[in-house]
């Protein structure tokens, strides 16, 4: 009799496993990066970002040398980095040690990006005046099959790699939805300071058994440029109208400057009509063109391997981009 009940229980557990697998986000997930979220070849590139006038001015004043200032070295790694960074995801369910109930999902750090705790226990959000951190404060709720995460209290940071910036008043909302062996992340960044409307990005992560790709080295500022060390008041920047790279995207890719400078009207289909008469496609792609891998032992590679474009993915900036501002 007892054996029969044990058998029934075994059957039920076997049947239960897929249910858990459908909803559990825990584990290792490899980023697919088949979009241009991490693209950062041209210094001025606000394409697809609904910046407002202030956000555009902020972006155009940016000189990459400013990242060498110790107080700015970690600004590239806000929680929004999950949408455009190069790293995989490790998600861990944190349980209450006594009740075993879910307290939080921990999205572990990677590289210079800190870990993120997504609190599931209903704890209140801190006061608006509470200190802001690089990781911010996140709470999560289940909405249907998706985990919805709302993050506030994070510092100013990149909205896309070196391309535009969110303020410390921004709110990031993202959903993680599991579909069989992938997770789709839909991110919505809302910033009353630098955005005219929310900025939406998506990314896909695929279930992975590779647990070796999770190095965590917290972002630690160091002295990089002697001129900044000697003159701490100096902030590398470009004055209004003086950014020397403003036409680079137009020259290389034929995209009109108006589109390069972003804005909400540029991200909807109607804008294509405006572009039709002004866009001149280059005869041939010459930079960051992707393509299949070069045959073994063959000639030079084709560049990207199907993943995101190689330029700007952690490599050094092109010559001249990190140069100090004119004195």
């Amino acid at each position: 009799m007892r054996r029969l009940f044990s058998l029934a229980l075994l059957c039920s557990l076997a049947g239960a496993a897929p249910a858990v697998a459908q909803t559990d986000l825990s584990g290792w997930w490899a980023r697919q990066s088949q979009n241009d979220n991490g693209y950062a070849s041209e210094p001025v590139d606000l394409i697809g970002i609904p910046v407002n006038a202030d956000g555009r001015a902020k972006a155009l004043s940016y000189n990459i040398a400013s990242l060498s200032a110790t107080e700015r070295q970690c600004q590239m790694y806000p929680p929004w980095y999950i949408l455009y960074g190069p790293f995989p995801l490790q998600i861990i369910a944190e349980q209450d040690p006594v009740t075993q109930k879910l307290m939080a999902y921990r999205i572990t750090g990677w590289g210079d990006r800190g870990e993120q705790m997504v609190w599931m226990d209903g704890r209140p959000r801190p006061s608006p005046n509470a200190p802001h951190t690089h990781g911010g404060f996140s709470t999560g709720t289940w909405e249907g099959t998706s985990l919805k995460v709302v993050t506030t209290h994070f510092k100013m940071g990149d909205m896309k790699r070196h391309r535009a910036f969110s303020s410390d008043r921004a709110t990031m909302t993202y959903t993680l939805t599991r579909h069989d062996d992938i997770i789709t992340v839909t991110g919505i960044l809302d910033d009353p300071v630098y955005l005219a409307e929310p900025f939406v990005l998506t990314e896909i992560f695929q279930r992975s058994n590779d647990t070796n790709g999770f190095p965590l080295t917290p972002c630690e500022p160091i002295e990089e440029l002697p001129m900044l060390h000697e003159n701490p008041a100096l902030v590398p920047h470009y004055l209004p109208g003086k950014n020397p790279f403003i036409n680079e995207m137009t020259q290389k890719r034929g995209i009109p400057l108006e589109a390069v400078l972003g804005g909400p009207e540029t991200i909807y289909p109607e804008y294509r009509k405006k572009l039709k008469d002004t866009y001149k496609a280059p005869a041939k792609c010459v930079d960051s063109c992707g393509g299949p891998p070069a045959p073994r032992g063959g000639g030079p590679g084709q560049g990207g391997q199907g993943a995101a474009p190689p330029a700007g993915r952690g490599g050094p900036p092109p010559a001249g981009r990190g140069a100090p501002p004119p004195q």
Partner: protein
Amino acid sequence: MRARTLFAIALVAAVVPLQAQRAGGPPAGPPRTVAPIDLTGYWVSIVSMDWRWRMVTPAKGDYAGVPMNAASKTVADAWDPAKDEAAGEQCKSYGAPAIMSVPGRLHITWQDDSTLKIETDAGQQTRLLQFGPVPPVKPPRSWQGMSAAQWQMSAPGLPLMLRPQERAADVPPPAAVRGGTLKVTTTNLRDGYLRKNGVPYSAEAVLTEYYDLTKQGNDTLLTVTTIVDDPTYLRTRRLIAYPFKKEANGDKWDPTPCSARW
């Protein structure tokens, strides 16, 4: 005898509730009636990603982001929009594996109780997402192919260890299913382009899509996750998710024919 009866009862009692927890188990009833999410209405593309490959026709040879193989590159390098126009194939970049990337609007309606219809203004395409059994006879291959749809419901009965604190063991899961996903599998395609500049997919490609909704303030976003599996031209699966925003009405609906060049 008594033992067998008890075993049967125990087995049914144990398995039935757990079956109800499975994501993917659609409840009984017409698909239109049991829909866990409402996808109907007008949706506009938010082109905040891949702008340079979607809002404009990219330069010949711009293949970044696509996990193409050598055969694919050979085909793409020979891209000639004039040839496509001459062959009457201006819609090659508007097939189901690519249509969600085309900037435009979707109009989603129920054609009948078990068929969702998606119309696009860009390229004036129509997709029919068929719930239930697949027709025994395949129609001729087409740009939009044959799409089999199924609802995937949320799983309200999470194990105790994965429940948030506010849901204790003695609190039953929600009575009504909240939320869910539409999964669509499309086959029987004509060969076409993943990108306007001639990056190909073959007629043997299989497209899998997931449709998910997100509420954000007064806005409703639709994310369409697309997976293209094509061993002929892709080294790995093509995985991209496209966001759309719901619009109040069809005032901005702008039917535009397919174009091989723009």
